[in-house]
């Protein structure tokens, strides 16, 4: 199915308040872009469930969840693939920076559990109702979310020097 068809199908199911818009290659402000659908962040859980269970869509694998720091907003980008229908789609859920929350997809796809944990670890996006919402790559008591653009590297962590003095504050 083409992204438009998927978009229309989703819009029919969930309404315009949850399925925001669809973007294609022809989008004016970017030169190159895979087509993607904007989703209301808290609706992610049910949209994901529908995407997986609908027989026409049948997105059975979540390839990748990437966080992106857009400056004012934080975004989670979902790349999905269907082994059954051999089609793919990209979903984007944009949430605000102060109180970032996106509905979890971990109950739908097994792999999402870890991918969302990684996104949380690096960007601090909270995934609502995630069954095991912990940091994954960093220590549990690490402060801050390193892949945010305004992240400042700590000088010390648990008494260990993690940033050499000459590099501290320069980056």
């Amino acid at each position: 199915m083409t992204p438009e068809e998927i978009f229309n199908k989703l819009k029919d199911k969930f309404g315009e308040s949850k399925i925001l818009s669809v973007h294609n290659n022809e989008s004016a402000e970017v030169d190159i872009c895979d087509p993607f659908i904007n989703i209301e962040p808290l609706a992610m859980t049910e949209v994901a469930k529908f995407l997986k269970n609908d027989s026409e869509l049948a997105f059975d694998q979540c390839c990748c969840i990437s966080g992106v720091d857009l400056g004012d907003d934080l975004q989670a980008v979902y790349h999905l693939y269907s082994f059954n229908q051999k089609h793919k789609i990209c979903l984007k859920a944009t949430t605000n920076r102060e109180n970032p929350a996106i509905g979890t997809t971990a109950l739908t796809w097994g792999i999402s559990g870890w991918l969302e944990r990684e996104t949380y670890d690096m960007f601090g996006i909270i995934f609502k109702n995630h069954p095991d919402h912990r940091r994954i790559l960093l220590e549990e008591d690490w402060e801050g979310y390193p892949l945010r653009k305004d992240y400042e590297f700590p000088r010390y962590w648990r008494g260990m020097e993690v940033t050499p003095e000459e590099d501290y504050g320069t980056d």
Partner: protein
Amino acid sequence: MEQIKTDLMTINMGPQHPSTHGVLRLELKTDGEIVDSCRPYLGYLHRCFEKHCESLDYLKIVPFTDRMDYLAAMNNNWAFALAVEKMMGIEVPEKCEYLRVIVSELNRIASHIIAFGTFGLDIGAFTPFLLAFNQRELIFDLLEEASGARMLYNYIWVGGVARDVTSEWLKKVKGFCESYKPVINEIDDLLSYNKIFVSRAANVGIVPKDLAIDYGFTGPNLRGSGIEFDLRKDEPYSIYDKFDFDVPIGSGEEGTLGDCWDRYMCRIRETRESIKIIEQALEGISLEGDIYEAVPKNFNKMPKGEVYVRSETPRGEMGIYIVSEGGKAPTPYRCKVRSPAFCALSILEKIAKGVMISDIIVILGSIDIVLGEVDR
């Protein structure tokens, strides 16, 4: 009789354990030998690849991709190069494409050798591991001659390759293909069908089709579960559509479909297919032409936008997601790597219930993780 109170024993497997394939820590709760739960802790090898990318220009990222999956550095280079080439719309010269196929298939064999060699080692068979390693050494000699380095090649650049090769090198590759075939048969005899090995690996760590897809299995792991899916075949990138090769899948011939033996056997058979591809590529390649033709001088023309490109590395689908801000910033705004081993490892929590401690090792070996790539 008085009730005997028993408790679960918590065992810390790793980060320094011989069979966790690097610095992975597993927190096992066991009832004697039976594992009740297994919780992986990652991040001991986290080197901030994605953060580094944000301050490096595209050509400089390539050597960093080497260090992600250090057993298959060529394939990583290629995955990254594919993403940037797609963004910039670069047409790679055909000669470079052939060279890329040859070196990355060689590296795929080298990586699979580690995978099945260490899998045998985990089960206790030392000799097949070293016999296979001899072949890996030959591959490294070849790759060193092509790129100048033995493990971290920095060979496949955006738009081309780093060095040209000679016709003698191609002959040597041909010679290697010939010498490799009997060795893999030998390993089949020595290890694959050995009764003890089969009883250890078959019917252990069974991942059925739906679970494999659900938990993001890709590459040989997915094919071990009986799903015929190979990005080289199903979404052919580069010149893979020119080659004739099979996609080996698990069939459960020694046990159940999707067990550790199937995943192991997929890798063994895949190396044979790689040899086939290399042989075809050696016939197709012509050494005329400039390899630097399409290598961009700078990245000022990088368009604004984003791209997600996936390619088949030995561990499965490596996806590179690049967000670029466009012309003025020659560094990616965001570069995310979808690492196949990371996704495959997530299944451990799920399938480690009720197996024995020895089986944890076998499962871990069969999904072939590289911690450099899991943690990035």
